[in-house]
């Protein structure tokens, strides 16, 4: 019951936000893009242009055109890129795997480092190593992500001649549409630096978050009671404390995953990684309005989907939120 009503509420919010985003996107397109100019160039006469405008429905009222824009968008048609001369969705979907794989690789690094380090800092707050980690996490939070990228490039490819400073390297085509970095050695070597630099922005944040939450949980009464029952330290840490630490972190992780997509714009630019973010910056330099708008709508969509999925996941893993309210 709770899940259902929650789901309905989220869907409602989802639709409203998507409508707002698409409205903004359409207004931009309407104000900035002149499809006729892009389609036919300078050589065609005024009368012919007018005919074309009429035919494409560009003289219709704003709202009629907006409704048409939404309808097309729902079928996946967001227009044609000026620069690539291809449907924008095709361009975006072509670049999407690169960005997603980069984000996944970075998330992997963040998850596998932040959890043990965060717990360590919470359990041994006075240890030298914990203090060092906390100091570095302040520096990490203060390093702009592109700077981390530049530093990595300078240290590894430039000074040491290790790893790669740009591109995806050799990739493998999966299912005919998904180019993956994860299955070739060259691809894996290429993704290391961009992934580390993308992870560098989230890692300190998560270490601090997990540490803070863990410290809070460790002072809870049920931890004390667990000690009084003679449970082993490991059981108390990993079964009792860790689960309680993780649940609220999940909801933060959802938002941060979305934020990471934003940061891919920076890392992809530094490492010339052929993903959506790099494409977006190219679109901006080429004033490719339909592509910019499509990116806006697409990223908005991905954010909303991630958030909704994470919130539902949260509901499912947190037993204190009861699906059926019943008290024994």
């Amino acid at each position, binding site marked *: 019951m709770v899940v259902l009503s929650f789901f309905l509420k989220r869907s409602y919010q989802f639709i409203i936000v998507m409508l707002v985003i698409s409205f903004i996107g359409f207004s931009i397109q309407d104000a900035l893009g002149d499809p006729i100019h892009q389609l036919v160039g300078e050589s065609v006469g005024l009368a012919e242009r007018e005919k074309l405008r009429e035919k494409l429905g560009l003289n219709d009222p704003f709202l009629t055109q907006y409704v048409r824009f939404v309808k097309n968008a729902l079928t996946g048609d967001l227009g044609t890129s000026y620069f690539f001369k291809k449907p924008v969705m095709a361009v975006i979907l072509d670049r999407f795997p690169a960005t997603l794989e980069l984000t996944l690789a970075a998330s992997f690094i963040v998850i596998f480092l932040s959890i043990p380090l965060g717990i360590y800092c919470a359990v041994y707050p006075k240890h030298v190593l914990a203090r060092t980690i906390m100091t570095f996490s302040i520096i990490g939070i203060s390093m702009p992500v592109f700077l981390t990228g530049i530093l990595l490039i300078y240290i590894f490819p430039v000074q040491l001649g290790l790893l790669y400073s740009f591109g995806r390297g050799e990739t493998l085509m999966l299912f005919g549409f998904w180019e993956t970095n994860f299955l070739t050695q060259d691809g894996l070597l290429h993704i290391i630096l961009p992934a580390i630099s993308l992870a560098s922005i989230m890692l300190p944040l998560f270490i601090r978050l997990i540490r803070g939450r863990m410290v809070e949980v460790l002072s*809870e*009464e*049920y931890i*004390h*009671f*667990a*000690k*009084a*029952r*003679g*449970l*082993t*330290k490991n*059981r108390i840490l990993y*079964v*009792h404390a860790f*689960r*309680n630490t993780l*649940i609220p972190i999940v909801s933060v992780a959802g938002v941060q995953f979305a934020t990471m997509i934003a940061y891919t714009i920076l890392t992809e630019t530094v490492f010339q990684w052929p993903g959506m973010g790099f494409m977006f910056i190219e679109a901006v330099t080429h004033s490719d309005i339909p592509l910019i708008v499509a990116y806006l709508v697409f990223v908005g969509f991905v954010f909303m989907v991630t958030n909704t999925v994470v919130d539902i996941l949260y509901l499912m893993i*947190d*037993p*204190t939120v*009861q699906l059926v309210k*019943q*008290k*024994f």
Partner: protein
Amino acid sequence: MKLLEIKNLTLSFQYPNKEVIALDDFSLTIAAGERIGLVGESGAGKSLAIFSILKLLKPPCKIKSGSIRFCGREITTMNETELNRLRGDKITMIFQNPLGSLNPVLTVGTHLIETARAHSSLSYKEAYDLACSRLNDVKITRVHERMRAYPNEFSGGMRQRIVIACALMTNPQLMLIDEPTTALDVTIQAEIMELIYNLSVEKKCAFILVSHDLGLVSQLTERVLVLYAGQIVEANATRQIIRYPHHPYTKGLIECLPEFQRTKKQLKVIPGRMPGLDEWPVGCRFHPRCDFAKNDCKEKMPAVTRLKKAVSAPVSNVKRTSSLNTPVAPYVKCFYPLNEKKP
């Protein structure tokens, strides 16, 4: 046979720049199967006293000196592994707040089973069956369903029953019970207390019950220790202490109880409040609130006075030592004990 023997235990809060004594020269002996009450106002140090038995004090509180022996083994020098073998096995605890004692993300079954399996080589199935029978013991029905439920699906009273079941998973010899009903509705209090008492009789398990409620303690225990500002001010058999309190503070506590009020006038109260940890007065710590205080009460700390007439032991097989350091015999810490001449 002494089950637990605490001698001259002193606990203190150790801050970087100062040290504050929280429990002063505390001694207590308990025999197998005996039920003892530890009574005092909040802040008297009674919870610290029982937490120290399992070395579960939270820093900066530490054991400063003294000894704690359980079945002849010294606890104060045990390491964590040895302590963990004792905690939740031979000595178990029941906490004050059942709403906080259970982990919200683990099922009731997990709590019970992990407790049993931490102290025995039971298989999961055996532990599960044991848990079910313990839930029956604490009068919980539909056990299989309840084993799968999470703590927040239960009311406070039910959660306290689960905590009690946890404390009985391993056939303990001693239960340390910290204000088990303070956080609960008054209506449920009696049920829970009766359950604890009956189970302790049935399982032949001794307990130390910590409470601020002398009335409650007097119904469930054979012996009472009254704690004031970190010191035991009086120890005696329950029946004796209720009838013939020797310390003015005990007398005040008894007069505060509704059921002991002779007249139907206003409820009596002890004037003032107990001093905080770092503001204990010189002399007898109770003197600022005492109706009977004389000049020497303000200057010197009264020594322990053994009461002249030893009281017949409520539990017949308890042997008493004559040493003053382990005063099992009734005693009072007052210059001018009341009721001295009466039996």
